[in-house]
């Protein structure tokens, strides 16, 4: 459906792999205003398709690849796109953000999003251009690693591919674009289950910008702020996210030995500093990003992508490995095999503890690294019994062998590398995050509780409200197309660069007491009818790019709408308060023996969170909340029932072999 807004392509395609039909999907400008793009628009689309629990690896599942208004506008760090589906790892909604070029290429081809349904009868890859969608035979790409597959597909197109892990339905398989992954939740397995090896997109369409002059000026200022901010201008470019590891260790935040503690004796050997000195070639970044947090490292003469802090922690401290070279190697292999690094590492650590406790003789042991490379392959190719079991993820292992209390997952998703007993707001976030134990969807409160600021990590005061505020902010920024790291520049410089000043100390002390004020702003974001352009340029950029009048409150409200919409979908899939929980190790055992503060007071925090979110005690979104957010009547208005202004019939080209096999498959 065409759009009157700037920066949008105005077209969403629905591609049915079963019968190879392609049609336009009737998204309107009202939808664009409410749901922006990325993960929120994807949630709105998926909402209509989900009536109740499904088998995520069946053809009932739907994949939505969605771009955002700021993609393609040249706004700093705003080239990120989203992939959503029902996760085979968790059984609930997952959304995965990716910095590869595929999103931009999709927009250049003239589409804001694609919806993929059904299942191809044989391995296929989709070629999307301005002229339509071509279904290609992908048998020559079978079992190819993600790098190989991208090379084998010719052309200047943006690519999204899966590796052997996706084809073999590893529940936490990812999809890869360039060397960036849509990592979490098993998007790769969903593609694999649909026999979809890859999607490519190519075009030269440029979307008009509503106010190009003003946007150009804003981009300059925004870039300048990102470059001069201590976090986004210095720390991240110089050391990448790896810089965090030493700080995490100092603050008991570094998950060690399957989250037994928060400190690792050998942290120096696996730190960001060590990587910078011994392996770093240069820093790298997603397109249009001045921060460039990614690393290029040299491994035995070959330049490859370096690891992020999460994998450095989880494949280092959490399995008692002090060999950074191994971590670099595994990180590269995982991307090539197409498996999420965090879930793989979390599952392996759990298996190690099961083995240590005599509950599963799997051959994996803490500190033993010589069999990990083989294990990764066994998982990806499903070649051994141990590999097959590990491929199901930690929660499934705990159903087979027990150990729920030390199975470090929430709603089926393995936790990231931050030990939440030293940051209880982060602990709350893990337990209520929509996609499971994800540090970002959690609200990333650990940035306030030790990584960026030094707000008391143990107090429960104000934490629920802070988590909600940052969840909403990050959801909104992500749906706009911006990298979440851009939201760090929200913090005034002095808070980061002068940690010992009285003002910083005072802010850290007072932050939790802002809870009641933040609560009002969280509940009624409309009151934030203003823009703080230098601190939070996102809504202003959206306004200049699209012509929609966005203020800070609109961005936060869109974020809240997205979070609640995802919760609604999860509710349809059976989620309630019983699922918002952490393993007992984190809630019942003190991290530092004798220090009662060092465990997550989950129930208390959860109650505050539900109240702040406008949910009932059972974790259901209240009708009043839905009404305020304008998502109370979705069931009366499924998007697919709307008439299309112009029935866009999109050209479909498929090779004969595929047409034949489809005819056989659908019997017509």
């Amino acid at each position: 459906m065409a759009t009157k807004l700037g920066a949008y392509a105005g077209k969403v395609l629905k591609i049915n792999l079963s019968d190879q039909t392609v049609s336009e999907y009737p998204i309107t400008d009202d939808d664009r205003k409410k749901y922006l793009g990325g993960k929120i628009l994807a949630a709105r689309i998926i909402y209509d398709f989900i009536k109740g629990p499904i088998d995520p690896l069946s053809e009932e599942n739907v994949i939505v690849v969605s771009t955002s208004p700021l993609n393609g506008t040249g706004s700093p760090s705003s080239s990120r796109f989203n992939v959503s589906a029902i996760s085979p790892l968790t059984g609930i909604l997952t959304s995965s953000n990716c910095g590869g070029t595929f999103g931009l290429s999709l927009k250049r081809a003239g589409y804001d999003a694609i919806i993929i349904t059904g299942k191809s009868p044989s391995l296929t890859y989709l070629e999307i251009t301005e002229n339509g969608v071509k279904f290609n035979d992908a048998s020559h790409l079978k079992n190819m690693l993600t790098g190989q597959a991208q090379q084998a597909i010719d052309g200047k197109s943006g690519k999204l591919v899966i590796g052997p892990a996706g084809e073999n339905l590893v529940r936490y398989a990812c999809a890869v674009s360039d060397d960036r992954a849509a990592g979490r939740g098993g998007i790769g397995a969903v593609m694999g289950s649909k026999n979809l090896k890859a999607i490519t997109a190519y075009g030269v369409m440029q979307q008009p910008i509503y106010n190009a002059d003003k946007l150009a000026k804003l981009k300059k200022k925004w870039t300048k702020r990102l470059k001069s901010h201590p976090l986004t201008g210095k720390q991240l470019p110089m050391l990448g996210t790896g810089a965090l590891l030493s700080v995490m260790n100092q603050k008991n935040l570094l998950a060690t030995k399957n989250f037994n503690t928060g400190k690792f004796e050998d942290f120096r050997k696996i730190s960001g500093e060590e990587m910078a000195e011994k392996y770093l070639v240069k820093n790298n970044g997603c397109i249009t990003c001045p921060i460039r947090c990614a690393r290029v490292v040299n491994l035995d003469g070959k330049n490859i992508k370096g690891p992020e802090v999460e994998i450095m922690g989880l494949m280092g401290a959490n399995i008692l490995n002090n060999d950074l070279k191994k971590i670099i190697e595994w990180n590269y292999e995982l991307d090539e095999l197409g498996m999420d690094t965090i879930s793989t590492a979390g599952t392996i650590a759990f298996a190690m503890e099961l083995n240590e406790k005599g509950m599963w003789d799997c051959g994996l042991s803490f500190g033993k690294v010589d069999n990990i490379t083989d294990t990764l392959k066994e998982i990806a190719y499903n070649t051994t019994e141990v590999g097959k079991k590990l491929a199901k993820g930690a929660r499934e292992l705990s159903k087979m062998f027990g150990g729920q209390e030390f199975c470090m997952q929430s709603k089926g998703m393995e936790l990231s590398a931050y030990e939440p007993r030293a940051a209880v707001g982060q602990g709350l976030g893990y337990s209520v995050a929509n996609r499971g134990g994800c540090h970002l969807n959690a609200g990333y409160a650990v940035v306030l509780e030790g990584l960026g600021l030094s707000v008391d990590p143990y107090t429960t005061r104000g934490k629920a409200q802070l988590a909600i505020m940052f969840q909403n902010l990050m959801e909104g920024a992500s749906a706009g197309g911006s990298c979440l790291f851009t939201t760090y520049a929200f913090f005034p410089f002095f808070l980061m660069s002068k940690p010992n000043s009285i003002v910083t100390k005072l802010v850290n002390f007072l932050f939790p007491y802002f809870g009641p004020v933040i609560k009002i702003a969280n509940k009624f974001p409309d009151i934030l009818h203003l823009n703080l352009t230098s601190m939070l340029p996102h809504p202003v950029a959206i306004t200049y790019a699209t012509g929609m009048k966005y203020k800070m409150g609109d961005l936060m409200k869109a974020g809240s709408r997205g979070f609640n919409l995802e919760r609604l979908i999860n509710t349809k899939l059976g989620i309630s308060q019983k699922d918002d929980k952490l393993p007992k190790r984190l809630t019942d055992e003190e991290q530092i023996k004798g220090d009662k503060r060092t465990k997550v007071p989950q129930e208390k925090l959860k109650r505050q969170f539900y109240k702040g979110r406008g949910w009932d005690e059972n974790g259901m979104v209240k009708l009043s909340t839905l009404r305020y957010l304008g998502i109370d009547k979705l069931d009366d208005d499924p998007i697919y029932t709307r008439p299309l202004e112009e029935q866009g019939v999109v050209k479909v080209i498929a090779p004969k072999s595929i047409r034949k096999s489809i005819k056989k498959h659908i019997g017509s």
Partner: protein
Amino acid sequence: MVKVEFFGIYRLSYKMSSWEVDAHSISDLLKKLSKKFPVFTYKELKNSVIMVNDVNFLHLKKYKTKLCDGDSVFIMSPASGG
């Protein structure tokens, strides 16, 4: 001697991971450090995160924190994030 370890941008800027110095307080240590390696001034160093034997010096006596032989001091970048 006090063992000083550098992290974050300090380690990359000084191009060394540790240094030993005879210092009786944090402020004495920072002065000596800025004099010996003028990569950062004393004023700039005052904005680092400083840990003395694993405890943030803000919980001790800040710049007046006394140091003894064998103490361990970490000098870390102020902003982290990730």
